[in-house]
């Protein structure tokens, strides 16, 4: 690992390589795919939240002029009850397939039941209304605690609870119960001078990417399937398609188009296998693009949850014990991120005694998917209890956190021991920020702080870099670019070779063009794909040294690469720049291609803290965010503008989650606000500037010290805003969202 070094490219802000195409509308996203003979697909979805499918009659739909094929769940090969690693968690393939097209039951309103391919999208839509599905409607269960009761309607007849590692024999909606425990919480609570406890209720929210899901599939008569789609992981789409369609991965090519946002929601497949089935039946390319309502009702939002937290502290401000109960709604099939929530909830603190119990529970809502630090935002509401302890002990809320802050060597309640982390540094930078002591300037205004953690992941990435004769490099890497990461990848190569970022041309490859690369998610791309590019550059340097040696007719042991070129160790006057040597490659053995595949283990977790000022209108309950600061440990910011961008974007998603976003269900399990009119994401008029402070506590596990930055910013904002509302109008909100109606209700109750 490099010691503190002078970077030439890392830390600068080059214009992103794909920027011009994106500001001119030339960049091609999945929805922009057009090809000769292309048909358009549409999906028929269940109107019921819970029902048995008695029959599906497609005859009338098939005979509508312009319709070319109809598929149902019966067209999917029988999926084995197998688990596959998708890169952001394990997935049961039978459930994955059933979610793409239902088998004998529909488990949420919007559950896909059939699909049509037609000459245009309007005809396809008309055909849907001609498909006759007979349902036996069943009572739905729509709340996690209701679903946990013994008499709750059961979604999956084969589901048994795996409790503390043991699989039970009673049918249940509780898929699993696990527990993390450290020390003796009962003893710790007895030692506490002060105990605070609260329940929290959070509603389902969606990632809210502006681009809807899309896929175009062409299943060639030669058996080769090509899928063009917007995805966070071309290789994971290939793997899922292979498993669900029962064909080898070698027969599938996935071409990742530009992607309009993902945040975890574009990892699991929904329409890719369906488009493939329609293509096989018609012999033509079939494109399916979801509508916004389909995205909200038929993809993977993040869980609603019921959480109970109890924290005890002594009067000096040391936390003596902490306990949490997390019950997360997994949606139609098991697999909520309750485990991740449990890992993060107390992670910022050095606790001797703690216990977290987590429950993964199915309910009649869409199956949940990852949403940026999945599970952690819900759990971070525990930060409101830290605030309450600070108030009651008359301690500064940041000092209280510093007193208990996790450091290197501290063991988390879920087991891992922290390596070098930046928790303390983030807290200190927060306390030292001018925002922390700025005057609030008016009535009904309050300031709140909160701290969040996300562990980040590493996983596998590949890259290959070709040296061009003109001294530039063509880089192919496998991470779909959602936030400017291809430029960051290029910057690694440029830094190592001593050339300008503009002289490296990065391209995101398809599954035939680049080595296996895990998903763009988990805050891993700069860390792992950047590392793969770094290693590919090392490979180039090694080869270039050999070429220089050949040129100079000396031993390659005598040549080293430094300052942007090769130099002879024994005779430093012998040197050649990268550009000059690049021009001579043809004479010295041919092209030079550097390549690497990595699976780095030294992941560094990240902390983020917020300071937020709000003003609450006591007559309406409406909260206005006046000022927002996010402080985050990035380890090493490769491209600071895009690090800031992650911090700002994640913060604003957290603000939306805190204030107005929620799935509003009626008693039948129908989402009443399935449009962007009533699923209310923040607009720019709702927000101030989002001030950012990048703290850099280098991750010892990475050559440049990188820590993932994408996810942790969404963790603290909801808790910080809840704390701010308390300081503004004296009310501790314990639900998300803290929408005006709910705040008003509490204000009126308080009287």
């Amino acid at each position, binding site marked *: 690992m490099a010691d503190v070094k002078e970077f030439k490219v890392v830390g600068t802000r080059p214009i992103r390589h794909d920027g011009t195409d*994106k500001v001119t509308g030339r960049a091609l996203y999945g929805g922009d795919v057009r090809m000769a003979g292309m048909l358009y697909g549409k999906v028929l979805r269940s109107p019921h939240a819970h029902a048995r499918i008695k029959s599906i009659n497609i005859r009338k739909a098939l005979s509508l002029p312009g319709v070319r094929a109809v598929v149902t769940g019966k067209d999917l090969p029988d999926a084995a009850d197998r688990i596959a690693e998708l890169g952001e968690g394990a997935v049961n393939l039978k459930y994955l397939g059933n979610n793409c097209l239902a088998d004998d039951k529909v488990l949420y309103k919007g559950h896909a039941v059939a699909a049509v391919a037609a000459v245009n999208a*309007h005809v396809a839509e008309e055909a849907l209304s001609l498909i006759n599905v007979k349902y036996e409607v069943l009572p739905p269960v729509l709340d996690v605690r209701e679903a946990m009761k013994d008499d709750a309607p059961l979604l999956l007849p084969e589901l048994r609870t795996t409790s503390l590692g043991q699989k039970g024999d009673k049918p249940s909606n509780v898929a699993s119960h696990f527990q993390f425990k450290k020390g003796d919480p009962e003893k710790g609570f007895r030692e506490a001078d002060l105990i605070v406890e609260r329940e929290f209720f959070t509603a389902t929210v969606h990632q809210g990417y502006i681009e809807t899901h899309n896929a175009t599939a062409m299943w060639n008569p030669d058996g080769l399937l090509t899928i063009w789609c917007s995805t966070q992981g071309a290789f994971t789409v290939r793997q899922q398609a292979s498993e669900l369609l029962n064909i080898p991965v070698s027969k599938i090519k996935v071409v990742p188009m530009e992607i309009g946002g993902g945040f975890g929601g574009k990892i699991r497949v929904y329409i890719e296998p369906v488009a493939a089935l329609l293509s096989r039946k018609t012999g033509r390319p079939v494109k399916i693009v979801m509508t*916004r309502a389909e995205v909200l009702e038929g993809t993977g939002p993040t869980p609603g949850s019921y959480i109970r937290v109890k924290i005890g502290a002594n009067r000096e401000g040391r936390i003596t014990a902490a306990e949490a109960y997390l019950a997360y709604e997994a949606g139609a099939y098991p697999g909520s991120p309750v485990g991740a929530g449990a890992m993060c909830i107390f992670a910022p603190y050095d606790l001797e005694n703690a216990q977290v119990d987590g429950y993964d529970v199915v309910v009649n809502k869409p199956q949940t998917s990852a949403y940026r630090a999945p599970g952690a935002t819900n759990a971070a509401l525990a930060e409101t209890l830290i605030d309450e302890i600070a108030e009651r002990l008359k301690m500064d809320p940041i000092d209280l956190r510093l007193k208990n802050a996790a450091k290197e060597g501290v063991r988390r309640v879920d087991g891992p021991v922290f390596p070098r982390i930046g928790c303390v540094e983030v807290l200190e930078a927060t306390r030292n920020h001018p925002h922390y002591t700025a005057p609030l300037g008016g009535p009904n205004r309050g300031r709140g702080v909160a701290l969040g953690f996300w562990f980040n992941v590493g996983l596998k990435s590949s890259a290959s870099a070709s040296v061009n004769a003109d001294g530039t490099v063509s880089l192919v890497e496998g991470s779909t670019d959602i*936030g400017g990461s291809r430029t960051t990848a290029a910057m690694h190569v440029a830094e190592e070779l001593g050339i300008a970022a503009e002289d490296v041309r990065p391209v995101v490859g398809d599954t035939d063009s680049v080595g296996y690369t895990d998903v763009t998610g988990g805050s891993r791309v700069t860390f792992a794909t950047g590392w793969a590019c770094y290693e590919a550059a090392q490979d180039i340097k090694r080869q270039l040294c050999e070429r220089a040696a050949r040129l100079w007719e000396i031993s390659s042991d005598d040549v080293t690469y430094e300052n942007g070129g090769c130099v002879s160790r024994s005779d430093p006057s012998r040197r050649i720049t990268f550009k000059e040597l690049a021009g001579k490659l043809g004479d010295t053995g041919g092209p030079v291609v550097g390549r690497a595949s990595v699976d780095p283990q030294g992941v560094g977790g990240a902390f983020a803290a917020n300071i937020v000022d709000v003003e609450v209108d006591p007559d309406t309950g409406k909260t206005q965010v006046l000022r927002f600061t996010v402080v985050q440990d990035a380890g090493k910011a490769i491209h600071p503008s895009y690090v800031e961008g992650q911090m700002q*974007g994640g913060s*604003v998603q957290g603000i939306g989650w805190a204030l107005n976003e929620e799935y509003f269900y009626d008693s039948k399990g129908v989402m009443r606000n399935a449009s962007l009119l009533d699923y209310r*994401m923040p607009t720019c*008029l709702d927000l101030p500037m989002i001030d950012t402070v990048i703290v850099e506590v280098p991750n010892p596990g990475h050559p440049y010290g990188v820590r993932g930055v994408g996810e942790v910013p969404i963790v603290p904002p909801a808790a910080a805003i809840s704390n701010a509302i308390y300081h503004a109008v004296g009310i501790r909100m314990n639900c998300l969202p803290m929408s005006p109606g709910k705040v008003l209700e509490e204000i009126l109750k308080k009287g």
Partner: protein
Amino acid sequence: MSKKVHVQTRINGEEVEFLCEPRQSLLEVLRDELGLTGSKEGCNNGNCGACNVLLNGRLVNACLVLGVEVQGREVTTIEGIASPEGLHPLQQKFLEHAALQCGVCTPGFIVAARALLDKTPRPTEGQVRHWLAGNLCRCTGYDKIVRAVLDAATVKKGKR
């Protein structure tokens, strides 16, 4: 199926004609019939601004205009913002300020901001936020977008 209608219009300064069904929106016509895929569909009901175009110089959601309604009108799309001389200052500033991450909302924002600067050459931050309230971005938190628009407004008019 209703008979297709023949429409004659001007798009990005060029005479254009197309056939479309009355039920096709301007957004569908641009993307599916004319290959102008720069305008995006995010919601199809006027709530996200990703489909923004100028219609006779007026900022509108193309998803809420029928293709047949642009007969005899002038349409400006994202594809018509840059000139042969180069990028519009808005486009340049979006790049410099890193005001895009996934980029899918960017065409809508640039068209909307162009309409703002045409009307109010030196807007305040408040005016920018008010004008762009109909454009949703989920990636950036808007901070860098607002800065880019304010910065673009300072670029001399001759350079547009």
